[in-house]
């Protein structure tokens, strides 16, 4: 009997390799960003957690202001502010256990500071005295990552390795809305889902990739929806509601810890400041938009909740501000010291064992520095010799030479 002699049968069975689809419904994010503060659900929240989040938010805001000020004073080469995004970064830091790992991008210095790292060490990259100023293994915070989304596969690989060793470690990786367009975002999420890696991806959707708004970045229903295509749950949360972000991240971390695999969380927030101090945000957005977000401020939202529940009064506000001021003053004082620069470090740790060529280059630089130092010293002595001799024409030249040598 030929196929044609069995009408209909040919089309009845699905393709041989086809398997029933997974139901995408449980993976879908809610229609609206999850909120806690100001809702009835907030009543069930731990007061100690809320108070801790509030203090960290206040500290975080002050840290952002201080870092921005230090940039204007020339103490930082550049600072990408996270003002307005404190809730997402603070919640990300607080949700992790000590053994867990955090994978920040360059805008996430606050997350590292909120995790307890030394802010001066965290700001090394942006100050420019070295690329990474803290020990990632000791702190379990990966180096601040500048090439967008490239830290996400690192988080996947690290959590994979930890699981292979039988260690209970979750990796939390931070990325922005712009970063979700990168190929590494796709590859990392795909790997994580296929291998059921204990990793949580937190997208801080702050509305802009420098000047490009989200509408020009993605046509997805939401960034959280992207999770569904990989077979992991997507969660949408109000990124300025620290309690909500903490709750959603905690669920995702717990899920990862018990072997449930990865989660993609989109925190909807706003970059209140420009991209960096070098950017002019007035070229691509209106003040009205910024003001609307300022009215949805993460600290104000938390303060209102705490006051309404009697967990915070004016004295508590002053106390939190004083704690933040202490952080800022310490940071200011230490950043106003010139960092100790070690040119020899340029060659140290390029390789485990220095190559012949690098050894030659290191020697050459050392000789240059020695000559510079000697010239400096000679000019200083020259200057001292002529000091007070108003009529010596060489003085001006000598002093000028000394200045040139020390710069």
């Amino acid at each position, binding site marked *: 009997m030929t196929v044609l002699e069995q009408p209909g049968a040919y089309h009845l069975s699905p393709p041989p390799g086809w398997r029933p689809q997974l139901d995408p419904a449980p993976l879908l994010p809610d229609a609206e960003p999850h909120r806690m503060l100001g809702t009835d659900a907030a009543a069930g929240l731990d007061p100690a957690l809320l108070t801790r989040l509030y203090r960290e938010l206040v500290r975080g805001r002050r840290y952002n202001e201080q870092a921005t000020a230090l940039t204007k004073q020339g103490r930082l080469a550049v600072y990408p502010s996270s003002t307005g995004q404190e809730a997402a970064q603070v919640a990300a830091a607080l949700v992790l256990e000590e053994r867990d790992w955090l994978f920040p991008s360059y805008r996430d210095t606050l997350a590292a500071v909120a995790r307890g790292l030394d802010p001066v060490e965290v700001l090394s990259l942006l100050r420019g005295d070295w690329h990474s100023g803290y020990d990632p293994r*000791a702190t379990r915070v990966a180096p601040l990552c500048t090439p967008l989304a490239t830290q996400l596969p690192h988080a996947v690989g690290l959590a994979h390795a930890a699981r292979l060793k039988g260690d209970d470690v979750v990796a939390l990786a931070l990325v922005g809305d712009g970063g979700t367009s990168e190929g590494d975002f796709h*590859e990392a999420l*795909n790997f994580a889902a296929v291998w059921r890696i204990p990793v949580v991806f937190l997208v801080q959707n702050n509305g802009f990739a420098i000047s490009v708004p989200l509408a020009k970045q993605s046509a997805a229903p939401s960034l959280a929806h992207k999770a569904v295509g990989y077979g992991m749950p997507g969660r949408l949360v109000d990124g300025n509601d620290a309690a909500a972000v903490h709750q959603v991240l905690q669920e995702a971390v717990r899920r990862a810890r018990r072997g449930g695999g990865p989660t993609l969380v989109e925190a909807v927030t706003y970059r209140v400041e420009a991209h960096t101090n070098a950017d002019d945000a007035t070229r691509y957005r209106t003040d009205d938009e910024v003001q609307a977000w300022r009215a949805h401020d993460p600290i104000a939202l938390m303060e209102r909740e705490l006051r309404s529940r009697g967990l915070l009064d004016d004295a508590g506000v002053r106390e939190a501000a004083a704690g933040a001021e202490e952080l800022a003053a310490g940071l200011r004082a230490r950043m106003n010291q010139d960092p100790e620069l070690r040119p020899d470090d340029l060659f140290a740790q390029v390789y485990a064992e220095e*190559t012949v060529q690098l050894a030659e280059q290191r020697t050459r630089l050392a000789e240059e520095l020695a000559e510079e130092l000697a010239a400096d010293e000679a000019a200083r002595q020259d200057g001292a010799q002529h000091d007070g001799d108003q009529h010596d024409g060489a003085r001006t030249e000598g002093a000028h030479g000394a200045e040139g040598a020390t710069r």
Partner: protein
Amino acid sequence: MSAPATRAPAAARKPATMAQALNRAMRDAMAADPTVHVLGEDVGTLGGVFRVTDGLAKEFGEDRCTDTPLAEAGILGAAVGMAMYGLRPVVEMQFDAFAYPSFEQLVSHVSRMRNRTHGALPMPITVRVPYGGGIGGVEHHSDSSEAYYMATPGLHVVTPATVADAYGLLRAAIASDDPVVFMEPKRLYWGKADWSPDSPEQVPGIGRAVVRRPGRSATLITYGPSVPVCLAAAEAAREEGWELEVVDLRSLVPFDEETVVSSVRRTGRAVIVHESPGFGGPGGEVAARVSERCFHYLEAPVLRVAGFDIPYPPPMLERHHLPGVERVLDAVARLQWESDWTAAADGGGTEGGGN
């Protein structure tokens, strides 16, 4: 890493291919060190498209030899994270040109993580890249991509040309605390040599070149797939009365200047041979260093025999592109054989001569 015997008894030595030696190197490394993990596309069940990882998943399990999704940046990026946690990943890139999506991970992270973190995060990652032409591969299967890697500080770039080196250098690469781009000349995968898998001979470590064939007329400086070409050229050159020395670099980074320089100072003439396009290729760097350090010993300009500066040709035309024996001999013939000033100066002492 156990210290293998210098030379196995003749009875234990039998014909083996480079692919088998590479396979054995990974197997021995995995057996010796539980932190060694192999990952890549088709490396598990299939044993790799060139079968270089054959049997590893079966012997060590899929957690140790893992088939990944088809995503080279993801593979290398995951390897970075694994290395951060103390593992020693061995990554297979399926073909030279298929490694390009992982380039950002390699350049922006693998090569500089140690430096970035003051040594806190070394990257003991081996990236195996089957490379080069001569296998009749269609587009994207025959690139010589070593110059890209050489231009990136922080990477080691290693390439074997013999069965014994394939084993020894891959073991050294996996044991290295630095990232190694391990370039495997796929046209030599099936080349055989007598070799003992159970007591492989000891070879010099990474960063050491070797003189494959001694000679006093001129030096051929080469590596990987061009080593057999140069050895054949040296044999053919005897008819012309030239005794050519063949230096196999083995490692492009670190570059063994001493072996190269001492050879050229002896012979006074040098030709660099590689498949990679000549412009901006490894030969330019070698020629510059030879010129800087052997200027007063040279009888002739340092010449290069390289692939043309063209996208790799389709298989039916590749023989026109690949440097072969004739092209090497043509270059040797242009080494100003009428010039003998350094030899003449020899009588009066040559060191630093030629003023």
